[in-house]
């Protein structure tokens, strides 16, 4: 068992004992189990999964970072939503505007579109999770 804590600047979204956590880190999906070594990683927008007693729960998280120490996983992110909380229409609109902006800035340096690409990833993750419920 390990403790999962998801905090956003506005509130503590989740604080629960779980069996395993999978987080979308900047270098790919990473699974965390109990007694994992202390680790810090940047996180990109995506779907975070955690398992409690055989049932698997999913949440969309925006970028941020994840820290694990002493069997406690802390996820710090701008927002975290369950499938039920997602506004699909808003996510679709966000995806469209992000795609448009990317197309308009296609020739600019990759660092400049970082923020927009993150927005696109976040929108995609939201749509994916909402559709999968």
């Amino acid at each position, binding site marked *: 068992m390990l403790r999962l*804590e998801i*905090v*956003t*600047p*506005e*509130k*503590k979204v989740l604080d629960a004992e779980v069996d395993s956590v999978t987080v979308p*880190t*900047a*270098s790919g999906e*990473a699974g965390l189990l109990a007694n994992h*070594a*202390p*680790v*810090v*990683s*940047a996180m990109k927008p995506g779907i975070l999964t955690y398992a409690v007693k055989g049932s698997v729960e999913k949440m969309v998280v925006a970028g*941020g*970072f994840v*820290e694990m*120490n002493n069997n406690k996983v*802390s996820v*710090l992110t*701008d927002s975290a939503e369950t499938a039920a909380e997602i506004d699909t229409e808003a996510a679709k609109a966000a995806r469209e505007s992000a795609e448009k902006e990317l197309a308009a800035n296609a020739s600019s340096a990759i660092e400049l579109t970082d923020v927009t690409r993150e927005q696109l990833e976040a929108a995609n993750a939201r749509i994916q999770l909402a559709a999968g419920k």
Partner: protein
Amino acid sequence: MASLLDMRRRIKSVKNTQQITKAMKMVAAAKLKRAQDRVTAARPYAKKMTEVLSALSSNVADEFSHPLLDARGDGNYLVVLVTADKGLAGGFNANVIKASQAFIKENSDKSIDMVAVGRKGRDFFKRRQTTISEEYLGLTGRGTANYSDAADISAEIIKRFSEDESIDKVFLVFTEFKTVLSQKPVIEQLLPIPKIEASEEDAAATAEYIYEQPAAEIFGKLLPKQVETQIYRAMLESVASEQGSRMTAMDSASKNAGELIDSLTLNMNRIRQAAITKEIIEVVSGAAAL
């Protein structure tokens, strides 16, 4: 001497005012509760953020350079002033405006640009020589502040700071919430980010972290978030202070109105008594004349 009717009218009008101040006090108390909850809710995030940042900073080489960290000249300041949108909150707005005015006066040799968060600060400095390059109004009215608003403000400031070489330092002026009765205006340097010192305890506890990405990279990603968190905290504290200040101001206003009503009622009774006495004398002397 005022007539009886005049006195009645005055008492009625003071009573109406008292009712309004009482209602405002209740509303402020409810909003204060909400604002305080928000401040508490924001704490775990800020705490973890500082912990990880200080752990990272001890892992990042000294020559690590980031636009948000590197010291620049000392000639051009940007002041971010957080005030309320509404008045009637005791000395709340005046205090924070006074603090920023003193700051501007102290640094009169620098060129100062201002970002106003809240209508009161904007209105005050608009009528003076200070240039206001950006204003954010109506964000704090409901007794809360949204993180997304803070993120927008911080994105704009970071963009200006990193693109525009003409800003050397960014300061944040806001009211710190201590208790309901005491709030203090504070001035903090926002950018470049003051050096984050790792406490020894933190450094010992975090020495053995595995960093999935290079520590410098994570550090660089977290710095803008730190700015966001700071602005968000400033807004939350300011909202809580505003409501606290309004609550105490309205409480004493209600008390004053009560005292005024008492003295007016006493006066009115005296006038009434005098009128009755006068009438009796008239009746008695009229009867004696018969």
